[in-house]
């Protein structure tokens, strides 16, 4: 029988080849596609956030880096990198298992250098994370990552509420590159704010601390928009954002941040910074 089969030339082998190929393809699909529960979740989320707009493969446009296993679920560093020349006008960060999954939406202004973005986020559970880039022609490009972290939403802020609120709205700016006029400049903005999400229990009073979080921020340079951020309870305590701008000569970088209780925090930085 075996001899017979070996002797039969092309057709049998072709069938085997096709079968092998199909098995390989199935394996590939299985490794690429998330398990059904996560896929269902993403389907529901993408429909809510993007309607039925198609989400194109983001490779070559946007990439998302985050630790596979986070050390601290309340403070997970993530980095979004945008390819040069893709004309990205906004970026969405979605953390599927968080109760408010759209963690941040960042829209770039004329003075932005939209290359790298870094944020620190809370992660409630093992989750898929998606970064979506919207290009100027209205197309959406998506990249996905799975990360292991759990309990970031109920983790206490780490100090008592009075201490967490002291100095609220204080800001600090770090330039990560030397200041050169008309060259892209990477900067990190730190905002002191507890970003209470309403799920943290005060260990002494046993009551949940009411939510209070940064819900939007505008960064301008000499009155030109660098970026606008809509954010919510997924940002970590003391939000930090690393972004790029193109300063056309020395000037003033102004930050106006709002929180969910309607408080406005403003801060101006003269660039180049005095210490540089």
């Amino acid at each position, binding site marked *: 029988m075996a001899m017979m089969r070996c002797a039969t030339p092309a057709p049998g082998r072709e069938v085997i080849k096709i079968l092998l190929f199909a098995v390989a393809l199935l394996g590939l699909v299985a490794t690429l596609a998330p398990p059904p*529960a996560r896929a269902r979740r993403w389907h529901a989320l993408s429909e809510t956030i993007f309607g039925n707009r198609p989400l194109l493969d983001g490779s070559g446009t946007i990439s998302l880096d985050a630790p596979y296993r986070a050390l601290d679920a309340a403070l997970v560093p993530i980095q979004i990198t945008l390819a040069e020349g893709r004309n990205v006008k906004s970026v969405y960060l979605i953390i599927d298992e968080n*109760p*408010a*999954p*759209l963690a941040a939406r960042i829209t770039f202004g004329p003075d932005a250098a939209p290359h790298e973005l870094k944020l620190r986020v809370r992660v409630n559970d093992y989750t898929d994370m998606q970064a979506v880039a919207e290009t100027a022609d209205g197309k959406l490009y998506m990249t996905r990552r799975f990360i292991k972290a759990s309990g970031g939403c109920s983790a206490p802020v780490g100090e008592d509420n009075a201490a967490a609120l002291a100095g609220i709205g204080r800001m600090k700016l770090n330039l990560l590159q030397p200041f050169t006029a008309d060259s892209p400049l990477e900067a990190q903005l730190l905002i002191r704010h507890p970003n209470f*999400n309403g799920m943290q229990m005060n260990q002494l009073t*046993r009551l949940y601390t009411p939510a*209070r979080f940064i819900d939007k921020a505008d960064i301008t340079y000499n009155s030109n928009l660098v970026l606008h951020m809509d954010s919510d*309870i997924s940002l970590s305590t003391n939000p930090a954002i690393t972004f790029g701008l193109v300063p056309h000569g020395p000037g003033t970088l102004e930050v106006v941040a709002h929180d969910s209780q309607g408080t406005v925090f403003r801060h101006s930085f003269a660039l180049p910074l005095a210490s540089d």
Partner: protein
Amino acid sequence: MTARARSSVTASRSLWPAIEMNLRLTAAALLLLLAAAPAEMAKLPGGTVLDTPALEALIAAEHPVLIDVAPPPPRKPAGLAAGTPWMPAPHDDIPGSVWLPSVGQSMPTAALASWFRARLAAFAGSPDRPLVFYCHIHCKLSLNAAERAIGDGYSYVYWYPPGIEGWTEAGEPTALAKPLQPADNQERKP
């Protein structure tokens, strides 16, 4: 030391006893660490710690009461922007479980503690019925709840530290959970 040892042969020779001593100490420390490792692992005095195969076997053989003590579904925070989707993920747990959120808190109110005691008595039926407590991975709530059950005189209390994440990762089936909470605890306090 390595830099010096590399610099000349004579130096490395004269240093050998020190290196040897170091190696011995390192080996001894490693052995000690290995011996201490099981003690470092999860422990439940008066009860039993389970891994996934052990839990599977227990479910098949003894039909224990499976008690999920994962935190309650989140309450929508005030001040969320109108366009921000609020979509708490559905909570899945091991099929056949009862979900008793909050009962694993480190300092439950007297009312919550007595509600838990009553629920446990109703589900177990007898102090000899095996009880399995779990929540999320790295979550202490299930350990707290298991310790309370042991304190209440249940003879066969089990703790499953990998939690629902460990169960799911092992490819085991899950089912959509519905929280069971005391009537006055349905809503979280603001």
